[in-house]
């Protein structure tokens, strides 16, 4: 069932949701979370489709926030909110509200979203594209316990990773990190079986794929060894090699589906490692809503400390801390016109304050020691 509301308010949307549920005969459903998707018109369809698929695992209320581009000064001063309320079969297993914001209200999206959040349930904010520099400080991001970005969908993933490390707050996470979970599991399981020390590592994958860097940083952070980042033509991650005191351990996946695990002294074994759909990644993301310390630790290791494909900067790299804010704008994910203009119009989200502000006082990722965890054995 679908209810269209033009030039509306949050309370009318709430009323429409109740009405919609009554009409299809399910006055209460056990939804476990609110998922806020912040996107542009161009990416809204795919994002919503992925969210609906994921909702089979996680019944949720999905709020899609679409900021419409204002192309004239007059448009920018007027303001309008349109909503499309979907319940029942049209909305996966939960409810969906697509919110279209025109003009001034698009700067105050949080005022529309806040009344529509489910009571007492966690909130996850997901930016399929165009995530803010500092997700936790973003007015919408601040509503969520969990903020999901996707550095894969940005123009300059490396810069993006630097910015993520710089602005990291517990609850931040990235789909590029979720993409490598299967690789990490196979690798951890392979190391369970050998009693040797890792000397060095190399991770190879396509250029402009931050998952490769994340995997490399995770390895460097956990193993305290030098990790090289190699470049191949993909798809995605293609090879991972650990040099150990008892010979190499290699995981090789040339075709994006089947991998071969080769361990010295053991027969080669096939491992299914298919690249996953966005909906599966999102479902994994929603499975745990507590802060991902492992991600934080890997991220903070610092992309500049990796060797190989990326420019190697052993200590304090020039473009690191003070320049970060400057780099920020250059790196702003510029996926479509609508996003950048919408972002430019958000006063609550200034193009990162000058380096004297709070962020500038933080050590750069490269200076940060790897996070020590109390629970670590």
């Amino acid at each position, binding site marked *: 069932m679908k209810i269209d509301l033009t030039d509306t308010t949050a309370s009318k949307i709430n009323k429409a949701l109740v009405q919609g549920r009554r009409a299809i005969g399910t006055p209460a459903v056990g939804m476990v979370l609110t998922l806020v998707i912040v996107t542009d018109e161009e990416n809204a369809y795919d994002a919503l489709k992925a969210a609906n698929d994921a909702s*089979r695992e996680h019944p949720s209320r999905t709020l899609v926030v679409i900021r419409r581009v204002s192309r004239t000064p007059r448009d920018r001063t007027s303001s309008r909110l349109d909503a499309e309320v979907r319940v029942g079969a049209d909305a996966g297993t939960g409810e969906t509200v697509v919110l279209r914001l025109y003009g001034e209200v698009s700067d105050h999206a949080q005022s529309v979203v806040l009344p529509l959040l489910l009571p007492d349930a966690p909130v996850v904010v997901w930016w399929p594209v165009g995530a803010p520099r500092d997700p936790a400080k973003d007015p919408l991001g601040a509503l969520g316990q969990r903020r999901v970005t996707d550095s894969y969908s940005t123009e300059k993933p490396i810069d993006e990773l630097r910015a993520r490390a710089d602005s990291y707050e517990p609850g931040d996470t990235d789909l590029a990190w979720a993409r490598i979970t299967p690789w990490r599991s196979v690798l951890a399981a392979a*190391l369970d*079986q050998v009693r040797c020390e890792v000397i060095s590592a190399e991770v190879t994958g396509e250029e402009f794929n931050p998952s490769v860097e994340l995997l490399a940083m995770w390895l460097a952070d956990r193993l305290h060894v030098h990790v090289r980042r190699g470049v191949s033509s993909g798809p995605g991650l293609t090879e991972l090699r650990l040099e150990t005191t008892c010979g190499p351990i290699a995981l090789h996946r040339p075709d994006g589906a089947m991998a071969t695990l080769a361990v010295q002294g053991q*027969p080669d074994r096939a491992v299914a490692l298919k690249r996953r759909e966005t909906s599966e990644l999102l479902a994994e993301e929603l499975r745990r809503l*507590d802060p991902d310390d492992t991600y934080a630790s890997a991220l903070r290791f610092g992309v500049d400390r990796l060797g190989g494909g990326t420019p190697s900067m052993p200590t304090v790299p020039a473009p690191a801390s003070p320049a970060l804010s400057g780099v920020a704008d250059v790196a702003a994910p510029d996926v479509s016109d609508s996003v950048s203009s919408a972002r430019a119009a958000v006063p609550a989200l200034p193009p990162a304050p000058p380096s004297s502000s709070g962020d500038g006082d933080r050590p750069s990722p490269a200076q940060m020691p790897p996070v020590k965890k109390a629970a670590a054995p």
Partner: protein
Amino acid sequence: MAPLSGTGANPLRDPADRRLPRIAGPSGLVIFGVTGDLSRKKLMPAVYDLANRGLLPPGFSLVGFARREWAHEDFAQEVHDAVKEHARTPFREEVWQQLIQGMRFVQGTFDDDDSFERLRETIGELDKAQGTGGNFAFYLSVPPSAFPVVIKQLKKHGLADQTSDSWRRAVIEKPFGHDLKSAEELNAIVHEVFAPDQVFRIDHYLGKETVQNILALRFANQMFEPIWNRSFVDHVQITMAEDIGIGGRAGYYDGIGAARDVIQNHLLQLMALTAMEEPASFDADALAAEKTKVLGAVRLPKDLGRDTVRGQYAAGWQGGEKVIGYLEEDGIDRQSKTDTYAAIKVEVDNRRWAGVPFYLRTGKRLGRRVTEIAVVFQRAPHSPFDTTATEELGQNAVVIRVQPDEGVTVRFGSKVPGTSMEIRDVSMDFAYGESFTESSPEAYERLILDVLLGDSNLFPRTEEVELSWEILDPIEEYWDKHGKPAQYPAGTWGPVEADQMLQREGRSWRRP
């Protein structure tokens, strides 16, 4: 390169890293009786689902052992068909390709030495080709009579010998004997060959999410445990009902009956989890200790004739289908006294439960297929409302729905909207299907993975099995000597005698 015993030394493992699943180490599974129903409908799909979820080690091997004249390819085809038909997760070619490399079939009978020798060679070959490292679990999906033979063959051919850096495990299915004596004999045979901690007894109920949730519900929450005792609980009903008859299992079922088939294992395990004290930790030893304590405290009613009921289904209509009675089934003796329905009352003699009856019932050809645990609370000691207002108010209850439609229901009274004060029972429902973040894995998936990981939390131990027989044996002996089963029409909720058994105490069975 010896496998590490724990995971502590692996720098890539971190307890805070909750995304990384527990993956079993290099290993293989040998299934005896691989052509059977259980294997096709449950085991093979579970192995595939595990592989699909990335929980099986690279190189995992599956060996089938059966009498049929199959080549490895025929076996793979059989698994393929079973997986396509019964697996929970979608079929993926690359996962299948990973699995198929480790599939082998060994043709032979249980008393044939040559075939066990071939099995040994196959395992050796897999260690070389697939890197299984000598770690194998033997799943005995075979009739009880074949048990001792297979176990002895495994010993004779050195298949049960584990070295310091590899393991051999035995997985056995119920029935674990048919009374205390036979259970002890069986345990003796198995333990002679496999060490006690390498024997995994499958009670698939314990692998179900809902059953594990009993512990979460009770011990992770504050709102249930304070009233989970004799001061507030009136009685507990544990039901496992099936709508099917005995089907083709006449040979196995006749002489065993519902009580031995279900109460002895599933229902007493469910009861133990419902009634036990909080374990010191969630490890296998602590859990087993608490379950054993409760089972040891179970006291049977003095008058077994009065507080136990058995029945046999008679011809009738079951869900719109005309069905025959138990005594008319193929291969059943017309004079058979085997119970297809059993209801018993037991009490738990400890401070928490003294005086609270636990009613356990199970049966075939009942109204519908359902398993549930209902904890029924006492009525409010005083009601400010007059009796007409509360006429339709029943007792509060917490119902744990084990299957199907897994979830928890809380039943309590609520005012009916309107101007007069009228209070009626309403249900508050939690359903797994609608509020969970992960689709529930099948019980066998969890249990097979636990076997490969060597995690024995969810497997009943020898003592538990023997204690359960100690509870049931006197009842079976009494039934042997007195009377015969009551008849109940198929498709109903059991014999009237069972209703009377509760009525005498002012209670009634829930309609599940």
